[in-house]
């Protein structure tokens, strides 16, 4: 075991010292890492790289849907024939044939009572 003792004694003397620029190198690496650290906090960087294509595709689909819904004009609720005949219809007929402008329940009830009284 003498050789082990000699070896450990020799190891005690073997020490590396930091050079004069070691601190500067650490600080410059620290500055670089903190810049990268800020970039890493972006949501995109936080995602797993394997999920990025799927999420990109989903995002594009959502944007397309919003774009179509925004740019394509909304169609009127009633067609041309219905619009032409609308002034000739009384409320009861309108209620029976078009379900577009359905009045509230008490009004409908009143209208039906009036119709029955007329008959």
């Amino acid at each position, binding site marked *: *075991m003498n*050789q*082990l003792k*000699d*070896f*450990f004694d*020799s*190891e*005690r003397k*073997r*020490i*590396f*010292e*930091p050079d004069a620029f*070691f*601190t500067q*190198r*650490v*600080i410059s*690496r*620290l*500055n670089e*890492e903190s810049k990268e650290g800020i970039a890493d906090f972006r949501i995109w960087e936080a995602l797993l790289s394997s999920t990025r294509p799927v999420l990109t595709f989903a995002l594009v689909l959502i944007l397309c849907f919003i774009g179509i819904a925004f740019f394509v004009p909304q169609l009127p609720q009633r067609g041309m024939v219905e619009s032409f005949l609308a002034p000739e219809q009384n409320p009861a007929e309108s209620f029976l044939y078009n379900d577009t402008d359905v009045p509230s329940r008490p009004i409908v009830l009143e209208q039906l009572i009036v119709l029955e009284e007329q008959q």
Partner: protein
Amino acid sequence: MEFDRELIVRAQAGDRSAHEAIVNQFSAMVFRLISRFFRMREDVEDIAQDVFLKVFARIDQVHPDENFPGWLARVTVNTCYDELRKTRRRKEAMETYGPELAAEQTVAPREPDSLGKARLALQRLDPKLRIPLVLKEVEDMSVEEIAKTMGLTQTNVKVRLFRARKKLQTMLGGTEGHSQ
């Protein structure tokens, strides 16, 4: 080691001059500890830089009243342990899958002297046995200090020291017998 606790508070606030002061004050200690496990200056320098970057990344976890030098020693030893394990795995992979260097050697390797044999035997030890042994024999740390530094119980450290010494004895006895 005398230590200004105010430095930790300033470092936690992101003060670069406090970071510099910490590196200046503790780089010698970190270098000395890493030198115990690595023989190349470049390796020691790289690992020391990694240690300080780890320390500053986790500086928020340090309480100013805590034993900062002890915590720093623990981070240093853990980093050395990770590096030794990586090196060991790489070496094993090279021995298993790498090119057969022995066949290409034309000059017979020089037989190592007794210190060289001890060094080789120590390098072959598993890092979890090697680190406590080196801390005990070279750094003259007590079992309690090793236990704190490595995050182990004192009994565990004693067991590891016993196993390390026994393995070294077997290896040195084996190589001596083989070389004679």
